[in-house]
């Protein structure tokens, strides 16, 4: 046995410092889940200490896709920072667009024309459906079901086609502008969206039949990763993760922005806070998004899609602002501290995945590896958003 060669394989800082718990008895195994593991969806790495198949402790290791978005905000002008927002969370890019644009508008007191507000609502909710669809497919993929993600992608492609029509992009949208949106929607867009919504309503029963009702999936999700409300509060978990635990907290409802206070929609909540509840909440949210889009399409006013009286340059007064929107993963917050120059003095992004992720370490304790994968999937993590 080449012992000297083996000794080189001792691991890096995290594995060597993640030494077995002194209170634990018996042999444990330090296992690196990631950064290239099929279920960490990207480059999340979780170091786990395992006792057989049971997880003793786990610790997420971040930073593999850190791009210094916050620092970039300090060296770019307010306008130049816009495209960055599509890259923070590539799955629900428009929510991040909205959070940043909304924050700057609040800071500078820019009025947004009503048509733009409705367009934002429609596109953002479409984007939410596409994000949830991808989560749905990927989650079942984590649990070993390979087919659903293809069905999800087929529908997601249609959403992307629709959004491509106005945003010009398929994934990393940079669509919202200060005071409006970059392009107006046309009748074709509305027609296609309505068609898609009809189609999507016929697809949902198939999804539920194929997956939700499946006894194997229920066995993998029910009573797995039960997340008490108190723990959500401790970690600041938001979005479907929090709502799955039974708290009907939705930024769209509790800190209404844009036109959400004029639209009717429910905030679905779970009961037990297990993975199945989080699953159900997301599935129900897609239905609510459909409702919102339909109402918004019906109520779509005429008018300009971007505010006509915009300042020439976006240089806000001294001051600070915080603006939050509800993303697919939870509360997206943007905090800007302005020193009166063309660039923000400090820009802070509150990403929901970051808070939701840290629930994992505590939830996974004492569970089986397979359950831990199920828990991680049910949190709907987007790694670039965690690292920013």
């Amino acid at each position, binding site marked *: *046995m080449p012992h000297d060669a083996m000794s080189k394989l001792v691991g890096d800082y995290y594995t060597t410092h993640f030494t077995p718990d002194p209170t634990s*008895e*018996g*042999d444990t195994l330090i296992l690196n889940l990631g950064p290239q593991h099929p279920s960490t969806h990207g480059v999340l790495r979780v170091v786990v200490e395992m*006792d057989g198949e049971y997880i003793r402790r786990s610790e997420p290791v971040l930073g593999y896709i850190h791009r210094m978005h916050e620092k970039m905000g300090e060296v770019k002008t307010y306008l130049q920072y816009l495209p960055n927002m599509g890259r923070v969370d590539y799955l629900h890019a428009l929510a991040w667009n909205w959070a940043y644009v909304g924050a700057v508008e609040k800071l500078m007191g820019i009025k947004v024309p009503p048509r733009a507000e409705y367009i934002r609502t429609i596109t953002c909710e479409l984007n939410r459906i596409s994000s949830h669809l991808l989560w749905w497919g990927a989650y079942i993929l984590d649990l070993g079901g390979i087919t659903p993600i293809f069905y999800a992608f087929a529908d997601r492609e249609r959403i992307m086609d629709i959004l491509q029509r106005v945003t010009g992009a398929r994934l990393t949208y940079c669509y919202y502008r200060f005071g409006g949106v970059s392009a107006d929607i046309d009748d074709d867009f509305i027609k296609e969206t309505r068609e898609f919504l009809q189609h999507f309503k016929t697809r949902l029963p198939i999804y539920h039949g194929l997956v939700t009702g499946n006894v194997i999936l229920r066995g993998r999700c029910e009573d797995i990763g039960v997340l008490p409300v108190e723990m959500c509060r401790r970690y600041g978990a938001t979005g479907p993760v929090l709502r799955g635990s039974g708290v009907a907290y939705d930024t769209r409802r509790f800190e209404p922005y844009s036109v959400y206070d004029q639209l009717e929609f429910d905030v679905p909540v779970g009961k037990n806070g297990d993975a199945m509840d989080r699953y159900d909440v997301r599935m129900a949210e897609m239905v609510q998004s459909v409702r919102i889009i339909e109402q918004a399409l019906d109520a779509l006013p005429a008018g300009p899609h971007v505010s006509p009286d915009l300042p020439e340059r976006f240089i806000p007064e001294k001051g600070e602002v915080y603006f939050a929107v509800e993303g697919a993963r939870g509360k997206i917050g943007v905090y800007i501290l302005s020193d009166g120059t063309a660039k923000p003095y400090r820009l802070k992004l509150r990403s929901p995945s970051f808070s939701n992720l840290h629930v994992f370490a505590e939830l996974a304790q004492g569970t089986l590896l397979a359950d831990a994968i199920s828990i991680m999937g049910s949190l709907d993590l987007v790694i670039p958003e965690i690292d920013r």
Partner: protein
Amino acid sequence: MGEALQQQLAYVGYGLYLLLIIAGGLAAVMSTSLVRALMGLILTLFGVAGMFLLMNAPFLAFMQILIYVGAVSVLIFFAIMLTKTPEGEAGAENMLEWIGMRAGLAVLAALTPAIIMATLIVKKAPAALALKPEVTLAQLGEFLTGPFVLAFELISVVLLAAMAGAVVLGFERRKGK
């Protein structure tokens, strides 16, 4: 095929199986890695199964593979995995001492009964018999439920007890955690 050829083939088969047994047995007791030792055991098991076949007892041969290879070896593998003794099992640091002190004794202990029994067998060996027809399953079954019913029930009880014991021991382990 002629009778003589079949006889020759049988001897060839015997030699092959004996080779398996010897190689496997040596690996089972000599190799430093326990997994390799287990592989040796499995080789031996196949050799013995082959010998059963040579004796026209295919049922036993298949049972040997089913029970020993399919179940017992896998269990032993489990034990090896759980106790994490992958290598240096025979003690690389004081191998010489071990061999010096105990190997002689071991060989003596192993050979004594062998020699005694070998001489006994060779002396009392009956005349070679033509191979009797294969024992059918029905015969075996009747035997197990007839004269050997007590032994059969006993082995069932032993198996049950072993299973229960293993479960109890295993539970004790979980509780201790």
